[in-house]
């Protein structure tokens, strides 16, 4: 299996650019990450990112009457430094979808794609150290299924029915995930959205698609949510915020995130970031929250390579105690 994956990735890296038509884009990706945590000492991963090698292939299909189909395949061969060496390598499929255009206001999508809930739907966090609430809220950022989405003059809508297992494919205990988000168009300086979620979700350990990430248990967790999110761009400042409230089975849960990004006017390839996010797993139980303050910097070295660093303080981990962490990342994304 591993040999097949490595061969596929190697082939992808060696294919000459000329092999692709002008309606396609092919990007290579390398993510190198490492750091130090008070609790775990030397670390080679963050909550969402591992050292990895991958690619993205994006293609538009058209006929005489225009574009009618879009395809995206984005995958990584990743190394999970927290696992024993024999189990450390795995394939992560992030995007694997086909989107068919029904008309100018409606599209239908099949495959593995972002769960339309909260900020994650409108941000690209694929390679960033700072993440949204998605992982704490749902358990994953993307899932397998189908969606109907589109853009009307004053708002975007997106509704999805997915299988509720995230990166890997499982169908157990009637798992499913139904989500919808309605938001303002993404081109505006002030944007907002409201999201709803209802589903029976499987919780897994790890982020591999192949071999499949292990499940915490075979039982699903019933999740109900309502969420609000917003962004505001003002001069060099970009503010992001989101809030999610609902239930995990019988427990009331709430989570919120606030982030402020600042682009240095004199050095615009450098951005400073500060984020606070908190997720309370049981509103009736004191100390059941995970709360983290992160301060980071992203420096675009050239058009392909971005260097990132972040310092994070966990005020209260769910399992108790505090933690300080520093992470460094070299991220390459280029054609």
């Amino acid at each position, binding site marked *: 299996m591993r040999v097949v994956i490595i061969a596929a990735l190697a082939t992808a890296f060696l294919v000459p650019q000329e092999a692709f038509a002008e*309606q396609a884009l092919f990007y290579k990706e390398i993510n190198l990450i490492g750091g130090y945590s008070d609790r775990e000492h030397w670390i080679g991963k963050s909550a969402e990112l591992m050292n990895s090698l991958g690619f993205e292939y994006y293609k538009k299909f058209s006929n005489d009457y225009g574009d009618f189909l879009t395809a995206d395949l984005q995958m990584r061969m990743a190394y999970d430094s927290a696992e024993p060496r024999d189990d450390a390598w795995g394939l992560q499929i992030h995007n694997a979808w086909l989107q068919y255009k029904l008309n*100018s206001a409606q599209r239908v999508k099949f495959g593995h794609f972002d769960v339309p809930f909260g900020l994650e739907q409108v941000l690209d966090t694929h390679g960033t150290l700072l993440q949204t609430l998605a992982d704490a809220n749902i358990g994953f950022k993307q899932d397998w299924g189908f969606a109907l989405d589109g853009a009307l003059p004053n708002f975007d809508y997106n509704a999805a029915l997915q299988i509720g297992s995230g990166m890997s494919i499982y169908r157990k205990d009637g798992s499913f995930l139904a989500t919808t988000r309605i938001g303002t*168009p993404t081109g505006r300086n002030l944007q907002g959205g409201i999201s709803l979620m209802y589903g029976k979700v499987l919780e897994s350990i790890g982020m591999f698609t192949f071999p499949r990430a292990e499940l915490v248990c075979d039982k699903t967790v019933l999740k109900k949510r309502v969420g609000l999110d917003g962004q505001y761009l003002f001069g060099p400042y970009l503010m992001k915020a989101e809030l999610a409230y609902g239930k995990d089975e019988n427990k009331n849960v709430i989570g919120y995130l606030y982030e402020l990004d600042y*682009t240095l006017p004199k050095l615009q*390839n450098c951005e400073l970031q500060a984020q606070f996010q908190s997720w309370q797993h049981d509103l009736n139980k004191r100390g059941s929250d995970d709360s983290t303050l992160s301060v980071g910097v992203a420096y675009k070295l050239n058009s392909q390579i971005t260097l990132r660093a972040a310092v994070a303080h966990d005020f209260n981990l769910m399992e108790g105690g505090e933690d300080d962490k520093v992470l460094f990342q*070299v991220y*390459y994304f*280029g*054609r």
Partner: protein
Amino acid sequence: MIKSSFRFIISAGKKILSVLIISITLLMVLMRLSYAAVGCSLSDPDRDVKRLFPESTGYRTDFITVKDTGGEALYKKIEQELGDKLDNIYETIDVPYAFYGILKGKEVIGYIHGVNQKGEYGSLQLIIATDLKGKILNFYYQRMSSPEAGKFMDKNFTDQFIGLTLEDFVKGNVSVSDPSKNSRVDFQATLRGIKKNLILLNELKKITQE
């Protein structure tokens, strides 16, 4: 205790050094092979096309780079026409620009194209819709980071670009005034960005159509 700590530090140091060496090697190899990553595409082409060309029935997206179209010579020609150096991060020779050919039935009736342009506080995204001869039919900001963004994005300002062509920019026939009080840099960036957009449309689409 001290001995084991020392061993731990040495072992961690070796790991970090190995990762660094492999990383730098990989990056150097890739930088030799690499192409640039980002152009400026429409945030929602279906809605934007319908708004800018209500009579359209579809559109076709093409990704075109200066490198593939005319190489270094074309890159230099674009700099000459622009009268300015292109940015070595955001305006590299291999940026894949997304061109939207607007269709009515099978017939192409116009184009939409966007560019990123460095402004005073961050990137601006300038989108123009043109007819087949490159005359601006519509202009808007998809992203505007100025503190006076509202003034720039107001139709009273953006509509002043309607009817202009690349020739008007080259000959200095553009008489649009700065709508801002303290954002002269963003105004100049807008003029540069629209001129760049028209040059790219002319150079890349013209060659592609031949």
